[in-house]
């Protein structure tokens, strides 16, 4: 048997046959190594995950309609011209409109946007399927997809119902050729009577519809269907004088209200016809946010449906310093009248957060290392006093200080080896659990972690042994001759 073999036999016997004591030291090293390995694994993996999450809040500037004048594609391009091309990562315009799904008698918010830009400003959008690449295609938020039960390839019919908007003209100004007039007046017992009249080329009444649903059904309520009564109005010009038309029998008050409503009627912008388009679903969108409640379509389709190219907002992702961003917003607001606003990105600077994370991990690592060091050191100290007589005996038998050092260091390194292997395995499990629970994604095993954890554990274990070894070496062999 060689000396080395005997050395290993002594060292391993000491650990294996004196289990209870060494188990504590082993446990502290293993726990330390577990936390370290876990932290390092997470630390290596997190920037990857965090990076994605940081960029997910990629938009850091918003463009909104200014005080005077709206935001449209032309204005947007004007505003974007103020930002150097290489700083502009992406600019996604948005327009939100309620659209009806007549087949289900439900309405949803449709967001019209530019899909090529969304990818840049909202990389966290997770699409099952594909982004629309052509018109008449939509991306449906997961929430909606679930409520109406659509999937990739489904078709859906969406309708834009235009709202009637008054042009703000006076009744006199309104009475021009081709205008559509709308007016109301109080009828019988306070109920409102509504009229809509379309004027012909000579600005005379071409057609008239009356809504008298608030009036007594047997009397005034009959007016909307009373052709003879309504026909009197055709060809007359506004305003109507007292004897121009006969009153409807039995409904004098309602008849007066119809005349009054016509005389007060003002022009409404010619309402676009409701427009229905058929769409194909190309993808289901998951974001974890409110976007899951929208239907996304192209700006072209929305323009076709609504007849306008108005935009509600544009989200910009600009890579620039804080000062430059301020400059750009000022320039845009001043030159184009478009309101530019900076939004606080969750990470104003990814680097700053990562740096802090690094510092935190470093600090925790340091604390864990220190605690492990103290714990193992204390245990080894106890071990040395427990083994005073044995150490004295070894010295009496001729062990040099070097041998005593080597034996204790050997035990420490052996502990470190076992603890490190245990820690690397447990650490990976620990990291996996943390990653899945906190970041919602699993971690890839880094094989290099095992030797790294073992190395660190062995260094820590060896360092922990320094003081105890000093104690051990100082033990006087003469104690074995004393009846201690």
């Amino acid at each position: 048997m060689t000396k080395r073999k005997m050395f290993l036999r002594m060292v391993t016997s000491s650990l294996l046959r004196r289990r209870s004591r060494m188990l504590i030291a082993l446990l502290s090293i293993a726990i330390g190594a577990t936390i370290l390995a876990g932290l390092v694994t997470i630390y290596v993996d997190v920037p990857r995950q965090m990076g994605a999450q940081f960029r997910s809040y990629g938009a850091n500037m918003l463009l909104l309609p200014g005080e005077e004048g709206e935001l449209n594609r032309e204005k947007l391009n004007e505003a974007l011209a103020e930002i150097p091309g290489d700083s502009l990562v992406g600019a996604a315009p948005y327009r939100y409109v309620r659209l009806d799904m007549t087949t289900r008698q439900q309405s949803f918010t449709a967001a019209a946007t530019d899909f090529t830009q969304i990818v840049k400003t909202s990389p966290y959008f997770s699409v099952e399927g594909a982004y629309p690449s052509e018109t008449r295609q939509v991306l449906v938020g997961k929430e909606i997809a679930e409520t109406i039960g659509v999937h990739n390839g489904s078709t859906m019919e969406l309708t834009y119902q235009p709202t009637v908007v008054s042009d703000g003209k006076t009744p006199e100004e309104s009475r021009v050729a081709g205008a559509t007039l709308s007016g109301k007046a109080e009828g019988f017992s306070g109920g409102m009577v509504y009229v809509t009249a379309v004027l012909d080329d000579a600005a005379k009444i071409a057609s008239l519809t009356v809504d008298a649903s608030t009036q007594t059904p047997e009397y005034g309520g009959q007016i909307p269907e009373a052709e003879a009564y309504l026909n009197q109005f055709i060809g007359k010009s506004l305003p109507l004088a007292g004897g121009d038309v006969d009153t409807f029998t039995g409904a004098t008050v309602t008849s007066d209200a119809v005349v009054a409503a016509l005389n007060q009627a003002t022009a409404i912008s010619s309402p676009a016809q409701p427009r229905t388009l058929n769409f194909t679903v190309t993808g289901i969108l998951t974001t974890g946010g409110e976007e899951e409640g929208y239907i996304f379509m192209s700006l072209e389709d929305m323009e076709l449906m609504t007849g306008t190219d108005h935009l509600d907002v544009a989200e910009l992702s600009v890579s620039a310093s804080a000062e430059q961003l301020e400059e750009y917003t000022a320039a845009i607001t001043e030159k184009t009248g478009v309101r530019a606003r900076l939004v606080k990105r969750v990470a104003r600077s990814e680097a700053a957060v990562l740096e802090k994370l690094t510092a935190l991990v470093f600090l925790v690592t340091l604390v864990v290392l220190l605690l492990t060091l103290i714990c193992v050191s204390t245990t080894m100290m106890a071990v040395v006093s427990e083994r005073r007589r044995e150490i004295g005996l070894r010295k009496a038998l001729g062990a040099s200080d070097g041998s005593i050092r080597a034996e204790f260091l050997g035990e420490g390194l052996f502990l470190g080896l076992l603890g490190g292997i245990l820690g690397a395995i447990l650490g990976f499990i620990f990291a996996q659990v943390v990653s899945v629970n906190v970041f919602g994604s699993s971690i890839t095993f880094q094989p290099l972690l095992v030797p790294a954890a073992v190395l660190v554990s062995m260094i820590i274990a060896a360092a922990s042994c320094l003081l105890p070894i000093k104690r051990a070496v100082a033990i006087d062999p003469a104690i074995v001759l004393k009846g201690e």
Partner: protein
Amino acid sequence: MSLLELKNVSKIYGELKALDNVSLHVDQGEWVAIMGPSGSGKSTMMNIIGCMDKPTTGEVLLDGVDISKESSKHLTDIRRDKIGLIFQQFHMVNYLTAVENVMVSQYYHSMPDENEALEALGRVGLRERAKHLPSQLSGGEQQRVCVARALINHPELILADEPTGNLDEANENIVLDLFAQLHKEGTTLIVVTHDPEVAEAAQRTIVLEHGRIAREVINENFGK
């Protein structure tokens, strides 16, 4: 031929003279017993001879080397090479087996050799118990392992401090027989004891009192 020579050796602890101007001469191959009441300085003397302590004054020549002036590192070397120690408390490494305990001594001395260690255990009649841990051995058996351990490296000098103090009659006789064998092989033996029977086995007995050699008795019946 002289192996050990103490010249006016004193060991002083504060006021107390544990050894007071002791001079002693031991020849190679001699078997010497040391007796004396408790506190008379026997263990102190053994510590000095065993290179585990240094005298306050005086010279100690072991094999012609003055060990009272040596550095403690050198003392360790000398102890390892020349001296075999046996203690009253049969100190063993409690997590190593009997044979491993013997091998520890080889390990520090030169090379561990399991067969040789087993042979030494055979000599003390414990070959069958070689794989037992100290906790599985009786006191007498443990002391015999210690004897095997002391003789494994063939030391010139065996120092035993009350080797039979905790042993029964039968084990005491086994140990004394072993000593007699070692003596026959030429090993020098210095045995501290309270037991007159153990002392009578030696060639001569030194009696210590208050750190001084009070008298010296030659055993005329030695070898008979």
